[in-house]
């Protein structure tokens, strides 16, 4: 039974909904899109005035880290194109697919911030996504009932009651450590126009991408730049993953190596003070020998990251972890401590998965969490809205080629390595069924019929497919060899997979 205020002309007036999404960034839009296409009633509320989330403001220097290759081999409207396009939201309709290139001016494969905002706004408009903007979620109440948890979201517009709130509020609250004198620094979020740093000695606390983004953008303005954090900085090229400073921001490294006015230190910041002459004095403790050192600066910027704006959710029992205070989540992005509360968007990196070889999934970025959103909605539909979703029959004779094609082309597997898996079940009664893409941990940790899961993985050196076979309740892992061109459909792979599948498929047939 839905009860809503009838006299409010704006969409989604306060009242009762099965699901309430909080946020209007790409994570929220993607979840709303898939819920809508399945016909699941929901409300979307956001304190922002329009769509886009963090892309309405950041990155500070107005150029994204995520690329889109407009002239990649696959058709733009195809599923395969998604592997080459990190910035478009997902859609079923061809006219809504791969629309990011439509908003790029051709000067870079990394969209500018305004181009990204335009891309998201266009998607929301064309997909008919509706959001109640200017509605701020303020607090939350939680009630345990006979049929599960129920939640009340108190907002600036009134109260929203639901069984399943989905928080897609980003990791956007500036975080600064409690270093003495930190109030003399400004946070990355409050960085001024680049010109205002002309001729200044700049000290940046933090050596993540945000610190190096500022350093790169201010190279031509600052007289000297020092970056510092306790651990050495590594680039994404060194880690062979998105962990580390992206190649876009490598120039400060070269300047540092060549003695060009950039210093990159491994040291803890012990305090910041102002000298009698008005200069800022940054007290450090070197990581290598614990010796103190002091760096004089005109400006200090804390590029120390962001936390999740979870408001009162921790007081409701939502467990968080890490410096970003990410909520701890199940494999389907539900709070592990307060069932019924779900998350979407960049927060879904709180469900880390296996993190094999130390390499995280890309759930912190749009090209990762857009797939999490689709899996989440399918999970909600099946578990809580009694929907039977399609599981396509597969001829067992086609199983090998299907799996190898998935490994070579499936964007879900490429963007969410060792995190999402393409799964086919082999139930003796219904035959082989393509059950789609699911979290790998779900496949590994839950019983089920004999099945096979295909992933793409990286060990920090190579990228290669991995086959997981579940037979009689036991699961085995079979990594395949890497291929220099990432083509896993050749004869060698067909033979290798035949050997793995032989025992599994013996006696099985399509329904």
């Amino acid at each position, binding site marked *: 039974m839905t009860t809503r205020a009838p006299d409010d002309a704006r969409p989604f007036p306060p009242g009762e909904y099965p699901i309430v999404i909080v946020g209007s960034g790409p994570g929220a839009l993607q979840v709303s899109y898939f819920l809508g296409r399945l016909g699941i009633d929901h409300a979307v509320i956001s304190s922002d005035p329009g769509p886009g989330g963090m892309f309405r403001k950041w990155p500070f220097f107005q150029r994204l880290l995520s690329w889109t290759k407009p002239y990649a081999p696959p058709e733009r409207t195809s599923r395969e194109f998604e592997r080459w396009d990190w910035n478009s939201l997902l859609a079923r309709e061809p006219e809504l697919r791969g629309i990011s290139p439509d908003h790029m001016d051709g000067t870079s494969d990394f969209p500018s911030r305004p181009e990204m905002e335009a891309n998201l706004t266009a998607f929301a408009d064309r997909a008919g996504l509706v959001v109640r903007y200017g509605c701020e979620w303020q607090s939350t109440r939680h009630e345990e009932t006979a049929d599960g948890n129920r939640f009340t979201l108190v907002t600036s517009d009134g109260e929203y009651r639901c069984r399943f709130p989905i928080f897609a509020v980003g990791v956007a609250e500036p975080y600064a450590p*409690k270093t003495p004198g930190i109030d003399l620094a400004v946070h990355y979020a409050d960085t001024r126009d680049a010109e205002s740093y002309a001729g200044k000695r700049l000290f940046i606390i933090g050596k993540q991408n945000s610190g190096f983004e500022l350093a790169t953008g201010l190279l031509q303005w600052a007289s000297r730049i020092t970056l510092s954090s*306790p651990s050495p900085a590594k680039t994404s090229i060194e880690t062979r993953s998105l962990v580390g400073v992206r190649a876009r921001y490598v120039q400060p490294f070269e300047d540092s190596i060549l003695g060009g006015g950039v210093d990159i230190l491994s040291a803890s910041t012990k305090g910041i003070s102002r000298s009698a002459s008005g200069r800022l004095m940054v007290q450090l403790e070197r990581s290598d020998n614990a010796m103190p050192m002091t760096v004089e600066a005109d400006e200090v910027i804390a590029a120390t990251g962001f936390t999740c704006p979870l408001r009162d959710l921790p007081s409701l029992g939502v*467990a968080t*972890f890490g410096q970003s205070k990410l909520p701890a989540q199940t494999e389907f992005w539900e709070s*592990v401590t307060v069932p019924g509360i779900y998350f979407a968007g960049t927060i879904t990196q709180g469900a*880390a998965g*296996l993190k094999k070889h*130390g390499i995280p999934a890309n759930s912190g970025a749009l090209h990762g969490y857009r797939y999490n959103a689709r899996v989440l909605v399918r999970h909600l539909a099946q578990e809580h809205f009694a929907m039977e979703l399609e599981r396509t029959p597969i001829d067992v004779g086609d199983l090998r080629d299907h799996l190898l094609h998935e490994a070579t082309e499936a964007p879900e597997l490429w963007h969410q390595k060792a995190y999402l898996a393409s799964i086919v079940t082999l139930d003796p009664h219904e035959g082989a069924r393509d059950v789609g893409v699911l979290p790998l941990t779900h496949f590994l940790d839950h019983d089920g019929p004999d099945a096979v899961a295909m992933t793409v993985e990286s060990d920090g050196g190579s990228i290669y497919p991995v086959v997981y076979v579940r037979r009689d309740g036991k699961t085995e892992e079979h990594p395949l060899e890497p291929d220099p061109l990432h083509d896993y459909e050749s004869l060698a792979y067909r033979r290798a997979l035949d050997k793995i599948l032989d025992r599994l498929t013996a006696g099985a047939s399509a329904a």
Partner: protein
Amino acid sequence: MASRDEIADAIAGMAIFVDLARPQLIGVASRFEEAFFPKDARILRQGLTGSGFYVILDGEADVIADGQKLATLARGDFFGEVSVLLGEPPTADIVATRPMRCIVLGGPGVEGFLVDHPRVMYRMLQASARRLRSANQRLTANQ
């Protein structure tokens, strides 16, 4: 739990980090990541490649090999190092029996970390020697 200082505080008294001064503890906290596991979560999986090195900040876990419980781990204990050092899949599951917080370092980062922190390597070696002795004693007792 969240900041480096808080993690440094949490690990300060642990046997494996007992020789480290405060700046080194802060360095450990910035090199490892914090992870949270609910009760019944499988943290290491027997036979699966690519795991990491874990140190328990809070909570408990069972070591289960081929369905048989071998040991219980608690705050200050660490696991996953054998698999990482040998480059082989773990020979047991690690399953949280209570909600558990850990710090974790991915496998590829472990060698560099230990080389940079020889006193941690020494303490790890001591712990491994104790485990080996216990295993030998169990073996002898069962003969």
